[in-house]
């Protein structure tokens, strides 16, 4: 069983507990164990970088050092956490001065960064480590006819990690396809959800959410699949606010891709944290006759 250090980040503790649960439950089906990183700290999302870049990198490096101590590669389900961890890991290895300064600080916490581990987003585990073929083989409840909008958002694909495709990625579509569902042609799938502008510039963020919901609806989606808690909260929890602001009538379910994956794998809804949505996902259940396993 391959084991990873799971970095939940702040949002997965409560706000996105269903993402946490469904990530653990679905990966388990493929013989992958996600073990929560001991004693982790908040990675700062974007805000540490607003204050100081060295601080931002140090706080992220602490988490990497903790995972190194356990000898495990690092997995983050939150796209912002992932981006931070990925780039800190890369920047430190490229810069001996930065490495030295950060280790000088980490020493206070009895930790050191050695640069010995890899950083993944949870969607990488499905797309690359497990792969669509193996997913297909494990699907017991193919989601035939379910139209899913693959919402990539920003930081899984941007900024570029290793020169990979960023204008037309396909890995999310491939995962949805492997579940037996139909990935719809969602033109705005790479557009930003507004992220923390929902707190700092409400007007702009609501408009950004509106554009995405509208595009998903027009593309015929039954549900939007997300791979980030911030995207999920903006698209789902602010739908009422969008409807009030623009006089629209969106009722678009927004689930984590791991929750939809869990349905395809025959996991009970409860185990996937389904039921705590603010926009009901019930319409998709009547549409897909889900045979829930034990």
């Amino acid at each position, binding site marked *: 069983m391959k084991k990873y250090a799971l970095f939940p980040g*702040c949002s997965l*503790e*409560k*706000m996105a*507990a269903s993402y946490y649960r469904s990530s653990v439950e679905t990966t388990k089906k493929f013989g992958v164990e996600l073990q929560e990183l001991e*004693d*982790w*700290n*908040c990675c*700062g*999302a*974007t*805000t*540490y*970088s*607003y*204050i*100081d*870049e*060295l*601080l931002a990198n*140090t*706080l992220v490096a*602490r988490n990497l050092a903790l995972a190194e101590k356990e000898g495990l590669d690092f997995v983050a389900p939150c796209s912002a956490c992932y981006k931070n961890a990925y780039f800190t890991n*890369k*920047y430190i290895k*490229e*810069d001996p001065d*930065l490495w030295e300064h950060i280790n*000088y*600080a*980490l020493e*206070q*916490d*009895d930790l050191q960064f050695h640069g010995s581990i890899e950083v993944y987003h949870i969607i990488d585990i499905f797309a690359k480590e497990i792969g669509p073929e193996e997913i297909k083989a494990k699907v017991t409840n193919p989601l035939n006819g379910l139209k899913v909008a693959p919402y990539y958002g*920003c930081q899984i694909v*941007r*900024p570029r990690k290793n020169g990979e495709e960023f204008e037309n990625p396909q890995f999310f579509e491939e995962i949805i396809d492997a579940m037996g569902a139909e990935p719809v042609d969602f033109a705005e799938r*790479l*557009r*930003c959800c507004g*992220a*923390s*502008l929902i*707190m*700092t*510039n*409400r*007007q*702009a*963020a609501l*408009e*950004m959410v509106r*554009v995405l919901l509208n595009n998903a609806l027009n593309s015929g989606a039954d549900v939007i699949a997300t791979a980030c808690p911030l995207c999920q909260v903006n698209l789902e*929890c*602010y739908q*009422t*606010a969008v409807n009030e602001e623009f006089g629209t009538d969106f009722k678009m379910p927004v689930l984590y891709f791991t929750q939809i994956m869990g349905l395809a794998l025959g996991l009970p809804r409860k185990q996937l944290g389904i039921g*705590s949505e*603010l926009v009901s996902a019930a319409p998709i259940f009547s549409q897909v006759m889900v045979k829930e396993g034990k």
Partner: protein
Amino acid sequence: MSAKPTFSHEISNLMYKSHGNPTKSCIQCGTCAGTCPVAEYMDQTPRRLIGMINANLKEEVLASNTYWFCASCYHCTVRCPSQIDIAGVMYAVKRYSIWNKSYSEDLVGPAFSEAFVKIIARSGRSYEPILAPTYMFSMEPKEFVQEAFNATKMMLKGRIPVLPTRIKHIKNFQEMIRRIIPIGGES
């Protein structure tokens, strides 16, 4: 006998060197402005802001709301034909304005960031309910109602933490931060 750095140099200096190319190679093509999903809410487009930095229009750049309205989506960054990390530049200007307290007073972004960092330094993790009031009180009443409404609904569904989780050795953690930036308080 070094000359005083220009504003555009200061901004470049605030960008960690791994980001590579700061702003000088901008050809003013407008790809960034055309890509940016927030551009219509900004008083200067990303293209103009980069141009203003290169022209050392410090006051005008800092008075702009553009860099605080940047959502860090990196769409401009990956598309810039001159490989400028525009999102990274926006971060650099944010830092410049925070350290100089030169951002415009009516913005929520800086207050939010500072409050957030204070909480991290104290508990090691972000904790929404403590943080909430610091930014919520600077909102319009209508926005405030929406925020509270959402928070209450989420709380009822068990989606907001009730108590902050602390990291184990908070003293060590704070000592670590002190080796990077002054955070005040006793050690």
